[in-house]
């Protein structure tokens, strides 16, 4: 059996790859609104930035998870004896070895067993864990664990979930949704009723129905789930982990370990993308359990195959819509029913239902609505958070409907949308007024006004350049069968956590003189997953505190919660917390200045004072003192929580309530070329216009929009986790068969950024990350419909759907 040679660089007792403070200076002001560069950029381009899978510790063991090979079965027996006897194996654990009374976890509903107990509910559910001195030893040992299953019938869709004799995925539910759901295989149900649909229906000149299917998308972040758990002398554990929310993890981990939260220390390791897929726990508890059991550091790294089982996916959905409109192009009403497949465990399903229902009509003025959204429990893979959740599925369907209605009315699809576009002051179906700019018509106007990409760009003097044609390098067409199509879509996404959630963040900001210069240190628990939050924090500190040098402290649980890096919320909420803490620090610094220098200059008492360029200045521009002199040897530090405006839950019968904090809007125009004979699609251009309120970092904002747009493109034409409807087993858990766009599939993405300030938000900003993922997909689908004339009611659209060969 293999053994391990130690990397020479490692120090005794301390893991290598532990994140360190990064100090970034700035030659310019480097404040908000500038495209300052990432503080972690140099580390990332040199390969020195340590991701969670890069961590290493002397004497560390490797953890391995044994997962169920079937989707729904009773566990008759588990025999670990042979695995335990394998040389190099330090521990094998099953449900029976869990140390505490708490043996389940979950984001909102604690329904997920740490290790399967009595039964497994989905393909790939963790059953046992192994720690060994080499990953191959751990794999071989896991393979020697004998699990006997007795198959149970699988629940795979609404019909099998709600049938009179349906098997219950979870018996004896006692969560807070069970009281209002019509069936125990429904996680959560949210109706929204407003106005009088029956009456509105009578006013409609046209009524258009549609039934839509949204496939299961995977986040497919590139950095696999991984982390390192190091046992500590006080009986606790230190977990270095890639996650989206340290404190949410902590809240779920500690009880299962039987430890108080202060004995579970967490540090954010480098995160290789997230997109919602790290909101739930993956290997966190397993690594900690093995570390505490063996007394040795334990590293777990999923491979890509396991990653497809190791995190929740985007809910696949069936959506049923009815739209009515008058001849003059005004919507009369919308009825819809959205059925989301939550899979075996609840994860974020309740919030997904809330978004799908409350945003189910789209960014339009509709006074009369009847909406129902439900999430099912099934034996399919668990589904939860992914960029734009709930809103993404709905947008695909309502935008298809908008095109259908426009066609029925003989109206231009953009014109029809503009006639019904919501604006500031419009009431949502929930009755909540939209109380900040909602430039829906303007975004559509802008995206339509962008110059069109030239026709037949693939033609050259040397013949067709296949790289620019559908099929690309595969050489399937030299122009034959290729038809261009253009499509538009617009979407609405909520920003931040909704429905009464106490959505706060904490920032600790410190100012002191280091090396003769004033330096601000920003310490939050915000998970930097690539979005550039660390860049923005430094910019805010420079703007508010007038310093050039900012140190970003590694994120950990030694500071209060920053909430989740999701829901487009971090720049708003943790950015808001950093600004707030900076303001408090500034007050303290000025107080210090007044004490030291006030007696010598009346402006200290009378003028509005600012910190700029390392100095205290009056609003008239007079310099009162150097910060270096004000601070002297003192350090000024503040840690403070910050909250956005509170929200309310939606009424469980009517869906009414001020449930959201802020809305975010984006519009897309897709230009595609379709090989109509082979059903292959080349997206030629995907233009986007988005309102961001205020671009704190324009370069990052554009990067977010382009990235989100591309994920929307992926689920339009290629991305889908395929689950066998008979067995509920995943058929394509690999990058060979779960395809995400390559650089040859991705078009140019011109972006038009609008900045209409939201007066309720810090700096007027609007969350950016998710909105572009919404409208990208329906725009591409609309363009394909335009090219082919086909109805196309599902996404992703595959060649079979375009060629009638399903």
């Amino acid at each position, binding site marked *: 059996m293999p053994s391990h040679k130690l990397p020479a660089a490692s120090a005794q007792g301390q893991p290598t790859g532990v994140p360190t403070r990064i100090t970034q200076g700035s030659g310019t002001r480097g404040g908000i609104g500038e495209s300052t560069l990432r503080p972690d950029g140099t580390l990332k381009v040199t390969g020195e930035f340590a991701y969670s899978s890069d961590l290493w510790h002397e004497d560390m063991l490797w953890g391995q998870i044994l997962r169920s090979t079937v989707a729904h079965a009773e566990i008759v027996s588990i025999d670990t004896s042979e695995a335990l006897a394998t040389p190099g194996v330090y521990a094998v654990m099953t449900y029976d070895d869990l140390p505490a009374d708490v043996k389940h976890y979950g984001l909102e509903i604690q329904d997920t067993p740490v290790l399967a107990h009595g039964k497994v509910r989905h393909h790939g559910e963790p059953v046992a864990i192994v720690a060994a001195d080499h990953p191959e030893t751990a794999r071989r040992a896991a393979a020697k664990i004998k699990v006997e299953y007795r198959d149970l019938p699988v629940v795979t869709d609404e019909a099998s979930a709600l049938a009179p004799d349906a098997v219950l995925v979870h018996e004896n539910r006692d969560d807070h949704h069970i009281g209002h759901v019509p069936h125990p295989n429904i996680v959560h149900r949210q109706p929204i009723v407003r106005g009088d649909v029956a009456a509105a229906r009578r006013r409609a000149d046209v009524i258009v129905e549609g039934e839509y299917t949204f496939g299961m998308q995977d986040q497919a972040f590139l950095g696999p789930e991984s982390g390192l758990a190091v046992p500590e002398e006080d009986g606790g554990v230190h977990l270095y982990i890639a996650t989206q929310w340290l404190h949410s993890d902590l809240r779920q981990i500690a009880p299962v370990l039987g430890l108080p939260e202060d004995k579970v220390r967490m540090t954010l390791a480098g995160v290789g993308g997230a997109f919602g897929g790290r909101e739930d726990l993956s290997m966190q508890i397993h690594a900690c359990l093995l570390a505490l059991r063996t007394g040795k550091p334990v590293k777990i790294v999923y491979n890509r195959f396991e990653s497809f089982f190791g995190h929740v996916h985007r809910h696949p959905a069936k959506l049923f819509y009815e739209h009515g409109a008058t001849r003059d192009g005004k919507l009369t009403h919308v009825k819809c029913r959205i059925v989301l497949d939550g899979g075996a465990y609840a994860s974020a399903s309740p919030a997904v239902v809330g978004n799908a229902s409350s945003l189910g009509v789209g960014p339009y003025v509709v006074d009369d609505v009847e909406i129902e959204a439900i999430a099912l429990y099934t034996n399919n893979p668990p589904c939860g958070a992914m960029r734009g959740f709930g809103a993404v599925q709905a947008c695909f369907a309502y935008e298809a409907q908008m095109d259908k209605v426009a066609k029925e009315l003989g109206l231009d699809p953009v014109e029809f949308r503009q006639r019904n576009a919501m604006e500031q002051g419009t009431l949502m179906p929930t009755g909540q007024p939209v109380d900040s700019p909602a430039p829906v018509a303007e975004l559509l106007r802008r995206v339509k006004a962008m110059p069109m990409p030239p026709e037949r760009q693939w033609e050259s003097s040397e013949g067709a350049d296949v790289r620019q044609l559908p099929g690309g390098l595969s050489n399937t067409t030299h122009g034959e069968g290729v038809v261009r199509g253009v499509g538009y879509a617009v979407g609405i996404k909520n920003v931040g956590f909704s429905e009464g959630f106490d959505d706060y963040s904490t920032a600790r900001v410190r100012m002191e003189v280091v090396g003769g210069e004033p330096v601000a240190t920003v310490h939050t628990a915000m998970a930097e997953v690539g979005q550039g939050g660390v860049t923005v924090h430094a910019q805010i500190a420079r703007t508010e505190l007038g310093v050039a040098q900012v140190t970003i402290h590694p994120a950990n649980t030694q500071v209060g919660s920053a909430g989740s890096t999701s829901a487009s919320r971090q720049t708003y909420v943790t950015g808001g917390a950093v600004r707030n803490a900076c303001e408090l620090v500034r007050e303290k610094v000025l107080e210090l200045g007044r004490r030291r220098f006030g007696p010598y200059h009346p402006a200290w008492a009378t003028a509005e004072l600012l910190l700029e360029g390392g100095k205290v200045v009056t609003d008239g521009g007079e310099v009162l003192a150097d910060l270096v002199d004000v601070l002297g040897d003192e350090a000024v530090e503040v840690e403070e929580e910050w909250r956005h405006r509170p929200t309310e839950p939606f009424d469980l019968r009517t869906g009414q309530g001020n449930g959201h904090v802020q809305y975010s809007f984006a519009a897309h125009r897709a230009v595609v070329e379709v090989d109509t004979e082979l059903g292959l699609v080349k997206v030629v251009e995907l233009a986007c216009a988005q309102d961001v309120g205020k671009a704190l970092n324009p370069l990052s904002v554009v990067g977010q929009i382009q990235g989100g747009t591309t994920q929307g493109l992926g689920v339009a034409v290629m991305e889908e986790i395929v689950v066998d409807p008979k067995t509920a087993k995943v058929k394509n858990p690999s990058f*060979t068969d779960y395809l995400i766009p390559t650089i040859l599939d991705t078009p140019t993405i011109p972006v038009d950024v609008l900045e209409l300030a939201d007066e309720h938000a810090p700096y007027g900003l609007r969350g950016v990350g998710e909105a572009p993922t919404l409208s990208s997909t329906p725009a591409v689908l609309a363009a394909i419909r335009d090219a082919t004339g086909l109805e196309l009611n599902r996404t992703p659209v595959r060649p*079979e759907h375009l060629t009638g060969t*399903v």
Partner: protein
Amino acid sequence: MDFLRPASWEEALAAKAEHPAAVPIAGGTDVMVEINFDHRRPEYLMDLNRIGDLYEWEVGAESVRLGASVPYSRIMEHLRAELPGLALASHTVASPQIRNRGGVGGNLGTASPAGDAHPALLAAGAEVEVESVRGARRIPIDDFYTGVKRNALAPDELIRAVHIRKADGPQQFSKVGTRNAMVIAVCAFGLALHPETRTVRTGIGSAAPTPVRAKAAEEFLNAALEEGGFWDNGKIITPSVAKRFADLCAAACNPIDDVRGTAGYRRHAVGVMARRTLTWTWESYRGAHRITEGAA
């Protein structure tokens, strides 16, 4: 697991004779995936990277002797004139990184119906040179594929080279995937015109348990071209002939439904590719034909 590192072809043959279960590894683009994903734990891995001969090719009068490990990127770069179909197929293999490592020997050894080289080899006409300590032999490409991921190799044999007929006319290769790069074939089609023998050969990938030729389609087209004097007059192939050819190519498929595509789509797509590649190659032949006529 043991790692064998033969320094020469003779050592490799001896090692394979001693350990017939040894898995040869050259580019590693199939074998390492299976090892990384825990699908395979061979007792012996036999590295072929040290055998320089496998990375060489010779252009002869009739054919090219292509070493089993010559990377696809080199075929694309250096053999476009002699082996245009294979060069086009090579360009569709996975990614630049994979094309830098993988070679035709690996495709043949794995014998997956989705291997990109197969349709081009079938269409061009080739023989696989295999050898063991018992001796060398050449297996015609038509007899090489014996089942899903099975080939005609004996357990002690290794693939040394492929002898591919030099193109005497235009060749084309098309592959359908659901992505514009780095994609495994949903199905693929190779076509070669052989003006010297006045024949057309085809190859179909990923649409039957093994790579296959569409023989009925070839026979039909050979007869139709001969009958209409097309090889001499260089006229445009009539649409009805092209359609019949395409239909017969589609009929030669025996595909399955899987996660990459439906059987119905595969049949349909092979027909479309057959028609298009016939058009492209024939247009190219006509162009060359006209030039020859003009020169004469």
